[in-house]
Structures are given as structure tokens and as C-alpha cells.
């Protein structure tokens, strides 16, 4: 388990991180979301030891993370970077050796990852000759070469085509589920985070605004919303119902919010009396909606 406790970091007068605290449990995928400049990259750089915090601690398996522990972390920076003129296979082996893997093992692992990640290139190709999507796969392979005990990925999905997104999603899920590796990754694609992750951490202006399982977050902010479509209904037909107000109008219907214990069945009865009910469902707030709500609050 990875624990960040009270991480604080300033760049000159700018406070990049202000008391950032959250947890990445074993075997779970944690989405790290926030707007540009909210502190995601700074946080991840501190976790992997590229930056030092001004205050706070990174705790890995119960002890402050040191250089030895960090050699077992896998990191994919947002600024992708490989030696452009080095051959792909050679490069992966070299990077793995920096993490203490011997050449034979690194050789085998590189070949294996080439297949798993569906890199469309020859091992002897130079990195600069690869398409961006393939470079990105190689970059991810570099992070996975030494079978890391923790994965920290900064925007791993950006720039991938839909197939690439699926492949990467599956690889991350396997790392977490089968090998129990805690995985934390940042992303702007919130519906993707929602689909892939167990937990999210929401950061804004260097502060963690929300942290937890996506379902819990939803439940905590769950409003009782109903989406209803009726053919031939009157304007504001729901005004007769106590505790029901219009949340928003849709082209073919409405979203209503139920408060004060108003009963959905009662709403359905009134709706049916209005005409043919084409659609009647509970509305789950999406992660994007949660995100907007939390950030605006």
C-alpha cells in the first residue's frame, strides 16, 4: 500500500501541493483526476523520487520510500521520453538494468511486453522511427520491464487510439488484480477513469478535494434524480407532486429531483396518467458531473 501524507511543495511563490494526503491500496486501480496545473504531475514526481517535497512523506509498505524501494516502482512520465536513436529492444533492456534486472531476464521480459502491449515495430527499430502510439506503448513497456511493485502513470491513455486504450486498460487491470500491484494513474478522460478504476482522488489547486471508491463518492453526493420521457405530457405536469422540482429539461423529457422523501412510484403513477411513458430511470451522476460539482463547490 502506498500512502501520501501531507505532501507540500512550493515553486517560488506558487504553492503546487498543499497537504496532499491519500492512499493507493494493494491491487487497486486509482484514478488521479484534476484540471491542468492542479498538482497531479508534481505529486507523481514526488512519489517516484524525481522531486523532493518541502514537507510530508511518501510511505511505501509502512516505511518512508527510499532509493531502494523506488527502484521497484514503475513510472511513466507525462513528458514521454526515450533515447530517440536507440533501438527499441536495446533501450528496454538498458532501462530495466538501471532497475537492477539482469540482461537475460530483461531480454525475455522485453520480448514478452512487445507482444502483450501489441507494439507494432521490430525490436531493432529505432524509437524515433515509431509512430507516436507505438512510442507510447514502448514507454509503458519501459515502466513495466522490471515487474514493478507499484505503478505510477502520468496520463498513460492520452494519445492512444481506442484499441490502445483497451489494451492498456486490460494490462493495468491485470497488474492490479493478478499481481496485486497498486496502480495510480492520472487522466483527463473521466468516463475512462470511471470505467477502469476502483477509486479516484480528485485534486484541485494542490489540494485533495475528494478521495474514495467511486461508488461511495457517488452515494455521498447522490441526489435522487429521475429522468422521464412522456409522449404528449403537459407543461410542468409534475408541479402537482410535493417535494419534486425540475432539475433540467431535456429535448424529449425532463430530469426531476425528488426531495423530502418523495416517492418515485407516486411520480410514475402521475406520469402514466399524462400519457405514454417512454423512459423512466434513476440518474446516476457521472464522474464528470461529480468532478464539476466538487470543483465548483
Amino acid at each position, binding site marked *: 500500500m502506498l500512502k501520501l501524507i501531507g505532501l507540500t511543495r512550493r515553486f517560488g511563490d506558487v504553492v503546487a501541493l498543499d497537504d496532499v494526503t491519500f492512499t493507493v491500496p494493494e491491487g487497486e486501480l486509482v484514478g488521479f483526476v484534476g484540471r491542468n496545473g492542479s498538482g497531479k504531475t508534481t505529486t507523481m514526481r514526488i512519489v517516484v523520487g*524525481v522531486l523532493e517535497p518541502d514537507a510530508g512523506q511518501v510511505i511505501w509498505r509502512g516505511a518512508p520510500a527510499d532509493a531502494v524501494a523506488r527502484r521497484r*516502482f514503475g513510472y511513466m512520465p507525462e*513528458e514521454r521520453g526515450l533515447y530517440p536513436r536507440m533501438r527499441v529492444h536495446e533501450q528496454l533492456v538498458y532501462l530495466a538494468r538501471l532497475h537492477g534486472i539482469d540482461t537475460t531476464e530483461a531480454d525475455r521480459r522485453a520480448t514478452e511486453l512487445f507482444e502483450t502491449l501489441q507494439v507494432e515495430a521490430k525490436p531493432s527499430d529505432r524509437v524515433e522511427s515509431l509512430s507516436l502510439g507505438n512510442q507510447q506503448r514502448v514507454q509503458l513497456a519501459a515502466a513495466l520491464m522490471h515487474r514493478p511493485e507499484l505503478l505510477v502513470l502520468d496520463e498513460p491513455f492520452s494519445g492512444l487510439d481506442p484499441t490502445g486504450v483497451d489494451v492498456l486498460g486490460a494490462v493495468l487491470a491485470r497488474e492490479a488484480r493478478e499481481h496485486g500491484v497498486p496502480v495510480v494513474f492520472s487522466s483527463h478522460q473521466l468516463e475512462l477513469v470511471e470505467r477502469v478504476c476502483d477509486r479516484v482522488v480528485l485534486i484541485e489547486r494542490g489540494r485533495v478535494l475528494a478521495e474514495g471508491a467511486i461508488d461511495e463518492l457517488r452515494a455521498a453526493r447522490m441526489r435522487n434524480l429521475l429522468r422521464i420521457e412522456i409522449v404528449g405530457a403537459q407543461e410542468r405536469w409534475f408541479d402537482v407532486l410535493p417535494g419534486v422540482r425540475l432539475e433540467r429539461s431535456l429535448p424529449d423529457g425532463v430530469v426531476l429531483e425528488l426531495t423530502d422523501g418523495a416517492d418515485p412510484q407516486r411520480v410514475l403513477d402521475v406520469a402514466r396518467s399524462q400519457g405514454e411513458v417512454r423512459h423512466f430511470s434513476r440518474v446516476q451522476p457521472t464522474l464528470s458531473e461529480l468532478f464539476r460539482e466538487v470543483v465548483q463547490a
Partner: protein
Amino acid sequence: MVSTLINLVVISVLISIRAFSGGTGEANFQVGTIAGEPAGDRIGTVAQAVPGVRARIVSFPDEAAARAAVADGRVDGALIGDRLIVREVAPASLRQIVQLSFAAERQEEVLDRYGITAGDRAQLGGGSPIVIEALEPGDPNRDQNEAIAFVGMILLYGQLFGYGVWVASGVLEEKSSRVVEILLAAMRARQLMAGKIVGIGLLGLLQLAFLGGFAIALALATGAIDLPGSAASIALLDIGYFVLAFAFYASLFAVAGALVSRMEELQNVLVPVNLVIIVSFFISISALADPNSVLVRVASILPTSSALAMPVRIAVGAAAWWEIALSVVLSIAGTFALIPIAGRAYAGAVLRIGGRVKLREAWRAAA
């Protein structure tokens, strides 16, 4: 590889120039004569008596052949009657021996006229050679040692510069390709910098040893020098000072590389470091002429320039032992003082992609 080849060519040219311009400092002339002329034999004898000059006589059947040989450079001059034929100008020492040989010729004629005996003539020849007593005797090998030190200094300068720039561009390459961030996740900034310096430094050392060995072998083979012992010790001296100077300068080159993000900007940040090395180089050249001027003595002790200036002074026998010891101590101390400063500036600058990072910003960023 290419740079090694270029270096080999430069060394070969330098050594060949010396070898063909008379190697160990003697002027060597080929003088043509027409078969049967007595002046010819005389020149060889006279040349033997003049220190530092040698002449070899080449016989031609007639004047036309002798003139042709002068014209196409097979001989340095042709003596025909009382006329010395040369292509462009006659070197002073050649003129001197020809003139002396004429004088000797006349002398013989006069002695013949008066019927002087062979024994008396021998006495007239000059008796025993003069004994020279020097009040401050110089090293007889100084000229050669100077030449060896000069070539050594040029090699050292090239290595220091070339491999220093290699460190800077290596750091820059890792920064601009962003690969530095995953490297820093596997090791600390200072380790990365140190690894780069040691790796490239070892290559530089290897190449220097190779070039030095090649230069000495070539110089001995062509007769440009004939002192294998001092050549080897000057080479070792240069190698030792290369290690000191590279250790001193490399961390500065690394910081310079970390401050910028593009190759085009690298030249600008390297200017201060390059300037110091170039100035040291010129001071060291002046050390060949005057190894004990105040400027040269100071330069040979300061770590910024000792690697270039001190081996030259040692080679010509001008350095006191304490000066040598001080230069080594200062170089090591300077390196150790510089490493933590450079390491911090490097760590602060290497992740800041974009424009040129100011040194002060880099220093603060690594706090």
C-alpha cells in the same frame, strides 16, 4: 571514431613536419655537382666541421642534369663552377658551407704554392675541437622535450574540449528527449551526472592513451624525436593531468548542458567554460617560450589551467617540486569543491524544460 581518425591525421601531420624539417634540429642538404669537380668533395668535409649541418653530394653528368635536379627539388642546390644554383632562395647555412668550401679551396691553392708539408697543413686545420663551458648549463634534450610537450598539450586540449562538450551534449540530449525523467526515477540526479562524467571521461582517457602511443611511435619511427624515455614520461604526465582537469571541468560542462533545452543554445552557455580553457591553452603555448614568467607559473598551479601549463613546465625542467604538488592538490580540492555545487545546479535545472534556466533558479529549485 571519426574524431579519433581526425586526431590521428593531425598528429601525423605535426610529426611529419618536424621529421622532414630536420627532425632533431640538424639541417640536411643535398648538393649536386658535376662529376669531377673538386669543390664537391670539399663541401662534405666542410659540412662535417660545422655543427648542425650535414651535406650529401650528388653527382650529375653535366650542368643541364644538375639544373633539372634543382628545378624539380631532388637536390637543394647545385654547385657549378663558382655558382650555387638554387630553386628560390639559398638557406643561410647552405650558403655558409659553400662559402667555407670555396675558402678552403683557395687556402689549399696558397698552401700548395708555398709547398707546405702535409704535417704542417694538418696543424693549420685547427687542432683539437674547442671545449665549451656553460655557466648555466641547459638540458641538451630541451628542444625535443619541448616538442613532445607541445604535441602533448595540443592533444590534451583537444581531449578536454571534445569530451567536455560531449558531457554537455549528452546531458542536453537526455534532457531534451525527456528521457531524464525516467532515469531520475531509477537513480538520483547526482548519480546520473557522476555516471555520465566517469563514463565519458574513461573513453577520453582511453583515446588519449591511444593517440599518445600512436604519436610517440610515429615520432620515433620517422626520427622526429629520439628520446623514447622522456616521450613516455611526458605522455604519462599528460594522462595524469587529463584525469585531474577532466574531473574538474566535466561537472561544469554537465551543468551547462542541463541549463538549456536545445542544441542551438548550448554554444551560448558553454562560452564561459570554453573561454577559460582557450585562455589556458594560449598561456600554455607561451610557456614553451618562457616557462618561468609569472603568468605561466600562476597558470600552471591554478586548477583551471594547470593541466595544460604544468606538463610543459615539467617537460622543460622549469617546475619546482612544490609547484607540481600544489597544482595537483589544488586541482583535486577544486574538483571536490565544485562537485556538490554543480550536482545541485544540475539537479535543479535538468527537469526544467523550456527556455534557458538561470543558474540561480537552478540552485533554488534543487533546495
